[in-house]
């Protein structure tokens, strides 16, 4: 009885903290500029199904991809067992699904979950080794400071522990079930006699063979594992939204709201479009526009801080798992330049967190994403090749943030590198990035005429 109450209280606290944090993230994301992505619903669902549910971009790197699918499948499917654990916890039942599903189906299901749990454990250990012993370049890098590194390790270690206690719990349980009922009842643990097990489970059977047959010890092991597991799950749930591990939820909406246009398309700035039309289109009447709202703050061209970015760009930043596939594919990063697309995403998220906190507490700082987090040198190293966009397993677009920050530098600050200013002047005056006369554009045709061959 007391354990039911403890369970329900823990569940309540966890839900409260989890929901509070999710709402905070939601309101931070909503600090971004409006962007209407309510179109093309069926294509969006398909993209989500393919990229998030189907992990299509993960398997581009087969080892990490397959290991990740183990963890992902384990996480999703073992949650069905979690349902039973929750019901048992709340109502004091024990393996409530057993009588409902029948012995053989229950056995098969749990056995299947155990195989998944084993694969999760295997993948977590493999990932821990890769991260900490293997020399994989993308797990270092200057944005991979102590917190991102320990964040990754905490997640992998907690997941491993969860799987170990889950398997040990099943092992102790199945030994108890296999004992003579009389002995178990004599020890006062009637609930462990309602299942008539003939076999151990597939994986935990290995552990079961190593356990003692003392009823009280088995009971203690089973209960301890049950509680470690559930407290671990609750703790994890509270931890996830503060961690890069948030991708397990955000991967789905983030891929749903993916850009559907060809990735080479950046999009035209609407504010600029109006200005250019007023300037160049003789049919536009500058006085026809309604009087501007006196209180309206004119929108910046491009982005200086997180609130100049769209909500989707902000959602991207929270969806980032810091895997570094973007950075490892980035031509600038590979050749030693300062730019790292992963850092762009992490900086955006960190600044957004800071900005959100400032808004809440009411004190503003003089900081901004551009300058205090991301330097112009990083931005000017980008070749806009889209390798980072292509590489991201959850369809994050670091390039769109880079371009928006460049737009601010150029259009609001006139702070482009000198050579680019020269290029701009040439385009403006000569219609080409070099200083050639536009009238000479067709000269090559005459060259062909003259020589007959070119």
């Amino acid at each position: 009885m007391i354990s039911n109450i403890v369970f329900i209280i823990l569940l309540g606290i966890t839900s409260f903290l989890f929901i509070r944090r999710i709402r905070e993230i939601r309101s931070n994301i909503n600090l971004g500029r409006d962007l209407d992505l309510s179109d093309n619903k069926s294509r969006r669902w398909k993209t989500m199904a393919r990229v998030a549910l189907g992990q299509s971009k993960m398997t581009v790197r087969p080892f990490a991809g397959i290991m990740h699918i183990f963890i992902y499948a384990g996480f999703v499917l073992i949650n069905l067992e979690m349902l039973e654990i929750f019901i048992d916890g709340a109502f004091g039942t024990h393996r409530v699904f057993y009588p409902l599903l029948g012995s053989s189906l229950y056995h098969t299901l749990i056995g299947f979950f155990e195989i998944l749990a084993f694969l999760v454990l295997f993948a977590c250990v493999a990932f821990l080794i890769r991260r900490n012993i293997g020399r994989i370049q993308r797990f270092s890098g200057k944005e991979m400071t102590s917190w991102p590194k320990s964040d990754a390790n905490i997640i992998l270690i907690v997941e491993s522990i969860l799987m170990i206690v889950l398997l040990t719990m099943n092992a102790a349980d199945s030994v108890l079930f296999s004992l003579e009922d009389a002995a178990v009842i004599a020890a006062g643990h009637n609930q462990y006699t309602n299942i008539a097990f003939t076999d151990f489970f597939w994986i935990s059977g290995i552990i079961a063979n190593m356990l003692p047959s003392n009823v009280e010890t088995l009971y203690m092991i089973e209960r301890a594992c049950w509680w470690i597991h559930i407290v671990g799950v609750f703790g994890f749930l509270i931890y996830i939204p503060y961690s890069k591990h948030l991708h397990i939820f955000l991967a789905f909406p983030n891929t749903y709201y993916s850009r559907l246009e060809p990735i080479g398309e950046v999009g035209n700035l609407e504010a600029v479009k109006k200005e250019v039309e007023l300037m160049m289109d003789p049919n536009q009447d500058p006085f026809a526009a309604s009087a501007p709202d006196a209180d309206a703050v004119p929108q910046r061209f491009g982005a200086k801080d997180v609130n100049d970015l769209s909500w989707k760009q902000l959602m991207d930043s929270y969806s980032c798992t810091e895997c570094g596939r973007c950075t490892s594919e980035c031509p600038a990063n590979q050749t030693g330049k300062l730019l790292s697309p992963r850092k762009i995403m992490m900086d955006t998220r960190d600044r957004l967190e800071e900005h959100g906190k400032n808004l809440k507490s009411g004190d503003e700082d003089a900081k901004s994403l551009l300058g205090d987090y991301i330097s112009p040198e990083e931005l000017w190293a980008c070749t806009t090749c889209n390798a980072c966009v292509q590489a991201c397993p959850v369809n994050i677009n670091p390039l769109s943030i880079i371009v928006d920050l460049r737009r601010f530098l150029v259009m609001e600050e006139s702070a482009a590198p000198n050579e680019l200013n020269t290029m701009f002047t040439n385009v403006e005056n000569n219609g080409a990035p070099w200083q050639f006369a536009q009238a000479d554009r067709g000269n090559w045709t005459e060259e062909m005429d003259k020589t007959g061959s070119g």
Partner: protein
Amino acid sequence: MSESMKIPTMAEMTASGEQPEVLFWVGCMGSFDDRAKKITKAFAKLLIKSNVKFAVLGAEESCTGDPAKRAGNEFLYQMQAFANVQVLNGYEVKRIVTSCPHCFNILKNEYPELGGNYEVIHHTQFLQRLLNEGRLEVKGGSFKGKRITFHDPCYLGRANGEYEAPREVLAKLDAELTEMKRCKDRGLCCGAGGAQMFKEAEKGDKEVNVERTEDVLEVKPDIVAAGCPFCNTMMTDGVKHFNKESEIEVKDIAELIAEAADL
């Protein structure tokens, strides 16, 4: 020969009451850069040989605004786009072919929202069509035994998902096609995109084109096939960096096909 080489401008064609099958958008590099002009001419010759009725804008063509846009100067880009759309729509242009993937990408993806709706085709796609329709025939004899590797331009490949057209065209050469370890959607940039062409690279250990040329050297090709005048320059410089210019040629697909067609 010189008679048939006359390439009409849109103005001339419209004046005689005609419409071309396709407008050849040459691009700044194709118009002015000596190396890129060879690509332009090779492609023009292929169009002529295939009896494609085409025209150019000549002095009425202007930068699409792509380098300005990627560098963040949306204003300048939209001004260029506005002017270009006026010209193109004025001539009622329906189809555009271009040998520059940057022009291709921006005309195809960004111009429609600004009122410029055209069927935009990259020259490798156009050559693929001409070859498939039998309007253009090449014999690959002179390329037999040569190893060719194709460097995917970012703005044709990743940006627009076109990986097959250039490869299919190259396959007509009867050469040995070999892929670099990073190719197609994982192809490495040449280093020129995003207006990098017009500035010194930021501080680093290495130039991007040198890194890419290392991929090239690994597969020991006789020819690096390019589909972009910017890539062409970067790869040519990269090959020179390793003093391999006597062993490895960097050529546009249009040049290779023109060579095979004895042009």
